C-alpha cells in the first residue's frame, strides 16, 4: 500500500501547504488570530492543571476502513483511549470519497461523543458538519490529512520537512561510516516532498560534522521499480567508491535494497532512507539495510487521542504554545494554527522491525 507513499506524501504535502500558508501570512498573523480565534477561545480558558477526565467518548473517523495503513493509525488511537480509560469508537466509509464522511460525523454528533478524530477526505466537504460538532462542544482533531483550519481544533502533523531532511542526513552519515561518497535515489525530478527533503538534507550536509560526507548525485527512479533499479545500477557504476544510497521514497528504497541484496555490491554499499517496515523486512534481515526511517502511524493515532482528551478536559484550548503530555510519547507543544508535530521519524533496525506491521 505504500504506493501509498503517495497517499502519505500527499498528506505531508497538504501539511506543508498549511505550513507554507501560515508562513506567508506572517505579517498579519497577530491580527488574524485575534479576530478569528476570539469566538473559539473565548468560550473556555485553558487550565494547565486540569486533570484528564475519565470515560471520555473518543471516536475515530479515518479516510476509509480496511486500509492497512489506516488500521495501524487507528490501532494506536485505540491503545491511547484505553490508557485514558475512555470509550473508543471507530466508524468510517468504505470509499475515500469527499462527501462520504458527512453522515458519519452527523451520527457521531447525535451520539454526543466528546472527541472526533478525523482524517478529512476533503478539506472543505466535511467543514459544515465538523463545525456543527464543535458547536455541540465536541472537540475535533484532524490527522493524516487536515480539514480547513477554521473547522477543527488541532491537527496532528506526522512530520516536518526539516525533521525528515535532518533525519536523512543523520542516517546517511551513520551508514556511510562517517565519511565518503553518498548518493540520493529520489522519486520524480519534480516531486515536491522529496525535493524539499533533499534541500534540507543538502543544507545539513554543509554543517561541519558532515564535512567528510560528499553528496555526488541525486538520481531519480520516478517511483518505478525498473527505473529505480536502473538508476541504482547507474549510481554504482558511475561512483565506484559510493558508500551509501539514501532513498527518500518507499519505492526507491525497496528497489535499491532489492537490487543490492542480489548483486556483488551487497555489504559494500549501504541503503537507507524512508521505507515501510513490511516492504523492507526482507532486506533488513539479510543485512542489506541496517537502518531506515518513517513516521510511525500508530503514534499518529495515539497522539491524536491524547490531544483530544487534553482538549476535552479543558487542559488546552488549541492555542499556540500550550503544552500537554501524550502518554509514552512525552510532552507536546501546540504550534501555530493548532498544529501538533509528531516529532522525528521512527528509525527501524533489525532489532525492532518485527514490532511493526504496516
Amino acid at each position, binding site marked *: *500500500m*505504500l*504506493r*501509498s507513499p503517495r497517499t502519505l506524501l500527499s498528506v505531508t504535502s497538504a501539511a506543508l501547504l498549511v505550513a507554507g500558508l501560515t508562513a506567508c501570512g506572517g505579517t498579519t498573523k497577530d491580527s488574524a488570530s485575534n479576530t478569528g480565534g476570539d469566538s473559539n477561545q473565548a468560550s473556555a480558558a485553558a487550565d494547565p492543571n486540569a486533570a484528564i477526565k475519565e470515560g471520555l467518548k473518543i471516536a475515530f473517523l479515518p479516510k476509509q476502513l*480496511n*486500509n*492497512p*495503513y489506516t488500521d495501524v493509525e487507528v490501532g494506536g488511537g485505540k491503545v491511547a483511549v484505553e490508557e485514558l480509560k475512555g470509550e473508543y469508537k471507530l466508524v468510517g466509509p468504505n470509499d475515500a470519497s469527499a462527501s462520504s464522511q458527512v453522515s458519519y460525523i452527523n451520527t457521531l454528533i447525535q451520539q454526543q461523543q466528546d472527541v472526533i478524530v478525523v482524517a478529512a477526505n476533503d478539506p472543505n466537504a466535511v467543514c459544515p458538519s465538523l463545525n456543527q460538532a464543535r458547536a455541540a462542544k465536541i472537540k475535533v482533531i484532524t490527522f493524516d490529512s487536515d480539514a480547513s483550519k477554521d473547522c477543527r481544533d488541532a491537527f496532528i502533523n506526522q512530520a516536518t520537512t526539516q525533521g525528515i531532511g535532518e533525519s536523512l542526513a543523520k542516517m546517511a552519515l551513520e551508514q556511510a561510516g562517517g565519511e565518503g561518497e553518498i548518493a540520493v535515489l529520489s522519486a520524480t*525530478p519534480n516531486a515536491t516532498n522529496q525535493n524539499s527533503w533533499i534541500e534540507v538534507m543538502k543544507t545539513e550536509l554543509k554543517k561541519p560534522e558532515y564535512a567528510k560526507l560528499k553528496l555526488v*548525485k541525486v*538520481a*531519480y527512479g520516478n517511483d*518505478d*521499480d*525498473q*527505473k529505480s*533499479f*536502473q*538508476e541504482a*545500477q*547507474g*549510481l554504482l*557504476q*558511475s561512483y*565506484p567508491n559510493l558508500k551509501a544510497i539514501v532513498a527518500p521514497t518507499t519505492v526507491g528504497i*525497496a*528497489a535499491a535494497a*532489492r537490487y543490492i541484496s*542480489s*548483486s*556483488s*555490491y551487497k555489504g559494500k554499499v549501504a541503503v537507507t532512507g524512508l521505507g515501510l517496515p*513490511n*516492504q523492507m*523486512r*526482507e*532486506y533488513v*534481515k539479510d543485512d542489506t539495510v541496517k537502518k531506515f526511517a518513517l513516521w510511525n502511524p500508530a503514534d499518529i493515532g495515539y497522539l491524536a487521542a491524547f490531544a483530544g482528551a487534553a482538549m476535552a478536559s479543558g487542559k488546552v484550548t488549541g492555542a499556540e504554545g500550550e503544552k500537554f503530555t501524550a502518554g509514552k510519547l512525552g510532552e507536546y507543544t501546540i504550534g501555530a494554527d493548532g498544529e501538533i508535530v509528531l516529532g522525528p521519524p521512527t528509525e527501524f533496525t533489525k532489532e525492532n522491525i518485527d514490532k511493526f506491521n504496516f
Partner: protein
Amino acid sequence: MTVTSDRSAPTDAPLGAPAPKRFGGLLKTRELGIVLALALLVAYTAIDNPRFLSGQSIRDNLLNTAILAVMATGQAVVVITRNIDLSVGSVLGISAFAVATLMSNNQDLPMIVALLAGLAVGAVAGLVNGVLVRYGKVPALVVTLGTLYIYRGITYSWAGGSQVNADELPRHFLTFANDSILGIPWLVLIALVVVAAGSVMMRNYRVGRELYAMGSSPAAAELAGIKVARNLLGAFVLSGALAGLAGVLYAARFGTVDAAAGTGLELNVVAAVVVGGVAVFGGSGSVWGAALGALLLTVIGSALAVLDINQFWQQAIVGALIILAICADRLVAVRIARSLRKRDAHV
C-alpha cells in the same frame, strides 16, 4: 504446427518471402541497424565508464531486458497481424499479483506452478482480447485500451490497497530471479527460449507465415483460405500468456507487488517492437528484431544513468531515439520496396 519444414517451404513463397536468399540479405539490414546502434551506444558508454562492461553490469542489463523481451515477443506477433495489444501492462499486473498472492499463501508450491499459473492467467486475458477483436469486430486498439483499464481495475479491487512484500514470498521464488544455470540467469534463459521459439515459429512454420499474410492483407488472407479467426485468437492468447509469464518474472525480480505493478509498461513494449523494426501496419518485422529493440531500449536506460545525463533530458532522448529508429527503419523499408519493384519479385 504439424507442417513439416519441406512442406512449409513452398507455402512460404506466395506469402511474401519469394526468394529467401535475396530477400534475407535485405531483411537483415533492418536488424543490423539496431545491432549497430547498440554497439555504438555500448562502445561510447564503455569509453566513458569502463565499468559499463563489467560482468555485473552485463548481467544487470540482460536481467532488465528479460521481462521486456518476453512481452515484446508476444506483442511482435500481434503487431505483425496488423493489430496491437495495449493491455499487456495490466495483464502483467494482474498475473504478478495473482501469482504473488498464490505463492505467499502456499509457500511450498514449486516454481513451475507459479510459471504455469501466470501463463494461464495471461492466456485467459488474451483470449478475451482476441474474442472481442474478432467477434466484436472492434479495432484491437480500442478493445485492448478498454481491457487495459478493466484488467487494472480488477487488480485494484482485488488488491484493495494491499501489497505482497518480499518477506511474504517463498525463498525459492525470490532467488529464481537471480539464480543461474551454467552462468546464465534463469530469467535471461527463459527470455532467450521464448524469443527463439517465437522467431522460429514466425519464420519457419506455416502458422507464422499465415500471420504475416494476415498482416500484409487481411482480405487476401481470408480469401486465400487462411483460418484468420483461429490465428488471430492464437496471436492474442500468445501475447496475453507471455505478458502473464512476464508477470511471474516481475514478481520474482522485484519482490514487492502491488496493484500498480507494470503500469505504463505497454508503451515500452510497443516502443521496443517498433524500434525493433516491426511495422505498425503489420506484415513485416521479426520477433528477434523486437527482442533486440527491447535490449536497445534497456541499454539506453542504463547508459543514460551511467553517463550522468540530466534526468529532465532522459525521456526526451529516448523519444528521439525511437523516432530515429523508425526513420531509419522506414528508409530501409522504402529501399526494400524499391528493389522489390525493380526485380519484380512480388508478382
